[in-house]
């Protein structure tokens, strides 16, 4: 009986001692933190996507507080949420151009020539490592949805044509798809940059057309038709450089013989497919 009492008393004593220690530590080692930080973090989407350039939402909140970022720097927040944060901080929301992920390939099942049937691993990277899937083009989209899986916001779905379609309303320009694509087909650019080159084939003429019906065959008509300096040809592909000339107009695309360069002020592949059809759900094939 006695030993139990001793044990209980010792434990209680220890508890009191450490509690006192913690109380003292709390008093003297206290770090002053802006109380707004927690509130701000609560107002941010909490997806920690990194599209703002900060390693997570809390870090972005810190940057908001010290004034090195504007509320519109968060591309995930809705307009209302951004305005709310701006009001809370009493600052201007700032202007942040809407940026989205764009695919530099337009060669889906219906356009790209198929030379073989690919039966390997069901991922783009697997196909890329193993001789490049079944398409004859070794630069284009593999169509096995690595980007769809990588997108945390559900903004990418594979179309029935085998190409990823980006939902521009949901896309936060976080860049996960850029990293996921083994062929580096995604670029993040402002939505207003509507002149899109949907091809990466560095070949010219017949060789390029033999691979895909929407391949760029390097005829360079777009470069001639665009405002001086806006488009230049590099490695048999047009490069649209918005800093070098302008304004960009749809004219540049009118004489394109294949439709490799397009004027897309909205989501890509919208005209091909008015109603997106989800043909592929997230994969659950592998056991972990």
């Amino acid at each position: 009986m006695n030993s139990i009492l001793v044990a209980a008393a010792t434990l209680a004593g220890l508890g009191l001692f450490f509690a006192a220690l913690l109380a003292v530590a709390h008093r003297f080692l206290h770090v002053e933190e802006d109380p707004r930080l927690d509130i701000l973090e609560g107002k941010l989407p909490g997806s920690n996507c990194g599209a703002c350039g900060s390693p997570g939402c809390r870090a972005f909140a810190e940057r908001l507080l010290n004034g090195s970022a504007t509320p519109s720097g968060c591309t995930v927040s809705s307009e209302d949420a951004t305005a709310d944060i701006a009001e809370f901080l009493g600052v201007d929301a700032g202007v942040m151009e809407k940026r989205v992920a764009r695919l530099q390939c337009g060669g889906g099942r219906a356009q790209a020539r198929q030379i073989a049937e690919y039966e390997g691993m069901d991922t783009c990277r697997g196909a890329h490592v193993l001789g490049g899937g079944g398409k004859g083009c070794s630069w284009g989209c593999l169509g096995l949805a690595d980007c769809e899986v990588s997108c945390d916001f559900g903004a990418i779905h594979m179309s029935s044509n085998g190409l990823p379609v980006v939902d521009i309303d949901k896309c936060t320009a976080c860049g996960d798809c850029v990293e996921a694509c083994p062929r580096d087909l995604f670029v993040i650019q402002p939505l207003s940059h509507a002149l899109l080159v949907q091809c990466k084939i560095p070949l010219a003429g017949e060789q390029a057309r033999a691979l895909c019906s929407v391949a760029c065959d390097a005829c360079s008509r777009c470069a001639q038709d665009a405002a001086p300096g806006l488009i230049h040809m590099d490695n048999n592909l047009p490069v649209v450089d918005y800093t070098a000339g302008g304004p960009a107009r749809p004219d540049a695309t009118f004489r394109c013989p294949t439709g490799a360069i397009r004027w897309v002020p909205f989501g890509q592949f919208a005209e091909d497919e008015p109603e997106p059809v989800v043909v592929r759900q997230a994969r659950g094939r592998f056991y972990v």
Partner: protein
Amino acid sequence: MKLLTRTFPHGVHPKEHKDTAPLPIERMPFTDRYVLPLAQHIGAPSKGIVKVGQHVERGEKIAEPGGFVSVALHSPVTGTVRSLDPKRHPNGSLVPAIEIEIDRYAGQETPRGTPADPQAGSIDDFVARIQQMGLVGLGGAAFPAHVKYRIPDGAVVKELLVNGCECEPYLTCDHRVMLENAEDVVRGSVVLRDRIGAHLATIGVERNKLDAVAALQEAAKGDDRVRVVPLEVKYPQGAEKMLVKAVLGVEVPAGKLPLEVGVLVNNVSTVACLADIFDRGTPLVERVVTVAGPAVRRPSNLIVPIGTPVRAVLEYCGGLTGDAREIVMGGPMMGQPLGSIDVPVIKGTSGLLAFTESKLARPAEYHCLKCGRCVEACPVFLNPSRLARLAKVGKYEDMERFQVMDCMECGSCSYACPSNIPIVQLIRVSKSWVRERQRDAKIAQAKEAAEQAAKPAADGPGDASAKDGKETNR
């Protein structure tokens, strides 16, 4: 007896299927067009030196080495250069290539140049001649041969190991070379052994090729510094490090070359080519290819000029059966499945295997049973089961920590797995991720270093912004 045969620990023993072993090597007749991609080997692609319309002789140099880790390329036939446009490479990509149309009335004799004494001149002359003759490792990886022969200062080669294992199922080209060309194999081994200053040349041959062992022993009679060692039949014994372990019982450290333990390893066909290069002055313009598999009508061992389209080779072998489903270049374990048969035979092509649907049936994948068979099979002592599990959840950093980059993708784990988990496939994909990450990190590091160098004085604000840049760089 079994205890006396040497081998390495772990590994697997797939069914051998070496049905083409008794078939003598025959010369394939010439076809109309030859396509020679400039990237036939590991390292920098060669640089073309011919123009469209130019007449070239068989054995004439058509491309110069593009760097030290690169070799010259020679025309396999007498004919005319027809195009320099990109053509499909066996790996699926479109790469610059030289297309040559044959001259139907030319003799197409095997080119004979001036013989040279391999022991005369400096080692640089020896290395340069081999590079100019276009020799690469003919075992399959096509690593430029001369790079290995340039022994770095301070390193000593005690022993030359000649790799006659041919551990991949189906392939028999090295076997036939050892049988029919034993003199050249021994001659090449002696040349190389003396040139690199090794005491001993050891030819390692698996025990399923005892006739080759006998032929080589016969050819090596009188030279007691050439020995032929029979090895137990096991895959992947033909991998450099496994062969060193099997023959000498020494382990090559991870990430190091066999040179670390004083050994140089070369394939039998490669050393046989050394005899061609020095005694006859013949560059590498053709190689022996095994055409086999259940979907080939007439399996054969063929001498095929480099650049022959796979389609022509298969046609010469009687074509494919109707249920042909997949064609693999190289062995079934590590070979490259072809996306098109309009690709050429390249220097590293050891075999062309055609499989039928039934051979390719992909059995359903089950849960990992933690049975450990893959661990017992892995020749480099990794834990494939754990790596596969990490690969499925995308933990590539952890995989790097578990030495995934030491995996040589031999496929023993996938072969051994009773649950049909595509282990090696998952690892291959992950390795591509890890490589990409390492490359990105290197680029970022170089960029940072350049930025640091560009800044004249590293004062407060400069430092802070550099740090900031690093933090925000995702």
